[in-house]
């Protein structure tokens, strides 16, 4: 087995294990389905005008049906009557608390309500005593949402007024683990900068002007590249420059596959180009796929704007 195959198989095993763990956990969660979420709940307050008024004020609801001697409560208040308020619920079943604690322990400590479906069977009037029972209807498998990963818990509550059925209230919450802030894609590292010193300053000055300058010995006229402080042929330190015409051929090349350097997209071809003037220059080949670069291929100089502060001479392969 190759290293890659072994790594792939280990990854698969890990995924299988996670799936299995999820499935076992969901199986456990499902055992709560059908168990009570609230038993013989009793509203902390009878239906009353002040709470109706506060609700209508908050909602901006001026419906006259909710005021006066024949007032009914806004039907959408149904759940409000059953709320535990600041002092909390006293009528939650241990099954519901157990389920929420189980989800907490699995890291699903956040909660958000997602669905509310209410049916109103009889209006609630001031003075009505509200009682209710609720059942855990379903617990979903692990779901990943924009908020995070967790489980939807659906409960169904039957609400009574003075013992008569007054409405049903189906409620769905998502108990979830906060999604970690999405990792910001790190900016692509910049390509390496050339090291510019007094021996090669002239070359980079030329590049800035889109001229590829070759050094020429003023003593023996030998051309040299890369730039050096003295002549290879006669050791003279005197030099001037010749501007390359920009034509050449691929003398040799390599294709970079591995290791990948962060600023580059492998595979790519790096060529040793023999310029028409006879010197050889290393550069990237553009305009030709890396696997179509060949020795002897004619190329033409161009300048590649890499980023704000870097331009480089590269060689465009010429078809044919």
């Amino acid at each position, binding site marked *: 087995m190759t290293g890659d195959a072994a790594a792939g198989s280990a990854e698969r095993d890990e995924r299988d294990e996670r799936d299995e763990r999820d499935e076992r956990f969901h199986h456990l969660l499902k055992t709560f389905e059908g168990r009570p979420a609230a038993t013989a709940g009793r509203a902390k307050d009878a239906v009353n005008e002040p709470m109706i008024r506060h609700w209508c004020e*908050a*909602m*901006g*609801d001026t419906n006259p*049906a909710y005021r006066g001697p024949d007032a009914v409560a806004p039907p*959408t208040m149904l*759940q*409000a009557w059953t709320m535990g308020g600041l002092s909390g619920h006293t009528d939650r079943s241990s099954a519901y608390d157990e389920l929420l604690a189980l989800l907490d322990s699995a890291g699903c400590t956040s909660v*958000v309500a997602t669905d509310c479906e209410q049916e109103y069977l009889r209006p609630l009037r001031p003075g009505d005593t509200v009682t209710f029972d609720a059942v855990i209807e379903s617990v979903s498998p692990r779901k990943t949402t924009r908020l995070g990963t967790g489980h939807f818990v659906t409960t169904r509550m039957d609400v009574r007024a003075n013992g008569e059925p007054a409405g049903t209230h189906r409620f769905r919450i998502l108990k979830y683990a906060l999604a970690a802030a999405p990792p910001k894609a790190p900016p692509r590292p910049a390509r390496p900068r050339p090291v510019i010193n007094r021996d090669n300053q002239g070359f980079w000055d030329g590049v800035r002007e889109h001229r590829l300058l070759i050094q020429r010995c003023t003593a023996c006229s030998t051309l040299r590249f890369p730039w050096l402080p003295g002549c290879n042929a006669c050791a003279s330190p005197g030099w001037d420059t010749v501007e390359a015409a920009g034509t050449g051929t691929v003398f040799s090349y390599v294709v970079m596959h591995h290791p990948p350097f962060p600023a580059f997209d492998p595979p790519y071809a790096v060529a040793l180009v023999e310029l028409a003037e006879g010197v050889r220059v290393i550069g990237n080949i553009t305009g030709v796929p890396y696997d179509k670069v060949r020795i002897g291929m004619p190329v033409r100089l161009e300048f590649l704007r890499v980023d704000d502060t870097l331009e480089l001479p590269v060689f465009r392969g010429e078809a044919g």
Partner: protein
Amino acid sequence: MNVGDALPPLEIPVTRTLIVAGAIASRDYQDVHHDAELAREKGSPDIFMNILTTNGLVGRYVTDHLGPHAVLRKVAIRLGAPNHPGDTMTLTGTVSALDGDTVEIRVVGANRIGHHVTGTVTVTLGAGA
């Protein structure tokens, strides 16, 4: 009234006050509906409207339009994008079914991020409607 009829839209400025007043009037003291600092700790950029307030606003939208004799029979809503302070939620509605004096209305409440709420409200048009 016909299937396909649109209700006039209702714009609800989602103020901090509306969010807090709605949460407290609905007896919902979850901190994410009144405490911005704790809401941020829980990954939300600010406090957000609770589902009971949304439910109340959806009901109000329909009865505002149909009048005090209309009686809500069912309200089923699903929440999407949260309503944060500073948002404006625009409620729109379309008659999706008619059966005698029972009307079903599809309601959407959109804010600048997307649909805060989508739902269906079933109403009976009482006497005088």
